[in-house]
């Protein structure tokens, strides 16, 4: 795992997410499709680089995103991204790097991340929506978008970011 390069690319992706993606999403869908590119990268780091790297990677970028868009609370994304990076790293250690496993990890991770964020805001009584509404309105559409973005980024990420040979070593052990 080439961490320096990964961090640089994720910073760029974060800028793309905050400044370019809002223009690409049609205006009726702007509060339903809310992609998090650092989340997708965290899952990649968890799969290619292991759980400890993914934990700190998710923590760092989650907190960065929290600070950049500080509305009410600080730390929701820091917490959820770190947790998801660690969990996916933990589960992914024994699996080979299959595309289907990556898609499953992205899908489930996206559901868990948005649910954690929802429940944190619910806990602090900052949102009045019911969970079913949030699920239908935002969480599921965003999950589908995350899966699509992950499919787009998967091949370049695997080619450029993982060190040659490291993938085979891991699947062999």
């Amino acid at each position, binding site marked *: 795992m080439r961490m320096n390069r990964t961090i640089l690319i994720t910073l760029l992706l974060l*800028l*793309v*997410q*905050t*400044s*370019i*993606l*809002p*223009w*690409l*999403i049609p*205006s009726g869908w*702007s*509060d339903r499709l*809310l*992609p*998090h590119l650092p989340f997708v990268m965290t899952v990649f780091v968890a799969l290619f680089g292991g759980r400890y790297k993914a934990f700190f990677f998710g923590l760092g970028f989650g907190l*960065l*995103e929290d*600070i*950049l*868009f*500080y*509305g*009410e*609370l*600080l*730390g*929701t*994304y*820091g*917490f959820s991204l*770190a947790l998801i990076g660690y969990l996916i790293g933990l589960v992914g250690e024994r699996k080979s790097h299959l595309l289907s496993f990556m898609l499953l990890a992205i899908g489930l991770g996206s559901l868990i991340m*948005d649910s954690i*964020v*929802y429940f*944190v*805001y619910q806990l*602090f*009584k*900052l*949102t*009045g*929506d019911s969970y079913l*509404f*949030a699920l239908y309105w*935002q969480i599921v559409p*965003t999950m589908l978008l995350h899966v699509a973005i992950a499919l787009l980024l998967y091949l370049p990420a695997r080619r450029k970011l993982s060190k040659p040979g490291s993938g085979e070593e891991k699947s062999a052990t």
Partner: protein
Amino acid sequence: MIGLILFVSLLGFSYGRTGLTWPERFVNDAVGTVQEALYRPVGAVSDFFRDLGRLSDVYEENEQLRQTVARYTQDKIRYNMIENENKRLQDELHFTERQKQLYDYRYLIAQVIASSSNPYDKTIKINLGSNDGIKPKMAVTTVDGLVGLVSTVSEFTSTVTPISELDSASADAISIAATVLGREDQSFGIVDYDKENKVLQMSKIDENDQVVEGDLIVTSGLGNVLPKGLIIGTVISNQVGDFGLTHTATIEPAAKFDHLNEVFVVVTSDVDAP
């Protein structure tokens, strides 16, 4: 486990805070510079393609604008007369300096540089900060109407909470005192956002108060949070409220909250400062 405790305490600590420490301000400003360089060109390209699609409407729009300008010129003449009259009357009645400057607003043009992807905490960032005299709780509008309030400020950028986040069910609700344009002294209501139906609601309207469909709702300036006379939206319907004592009107917001490009920050003259 320790991580969980740390995070809950961080969440609790950061809740309801308005100031920013210097690392937060630094990160905001550093990233904000690059975001600005990206957001504006992309916005321009996107606007260009949208305009291409609307090219056929241009003639009609031009005609409408011409009529509006003609009406505006007449109104401007009337306004100047009334303003002079008003000044003379204020002088005769010995208004204090504070009262005279109360409704003297300045509009600062700001560029939007980024928008967040947090579904329960949607914020946008603008490229004006405390260096330009921005303070928390200032109103932010577009040419269409009220968009939101400035929530946090760093040196060169600040964060804006849209009025679509002012949910009355949540603990952080800020209520907007509103009134009907043209009947400012008769109508009064409190506006907040209804997330599930994507409309604004104006509640606590007096039952003798005739708020009807098509009325233009503006901020009343009462309560001193927001300036007076910013457009909020138009009334769609009006029905009896929850307890049967007051009426609740549904309002279509005048401003859109996504694909924002240019916004105005309303600066009130700081008469209360020592």
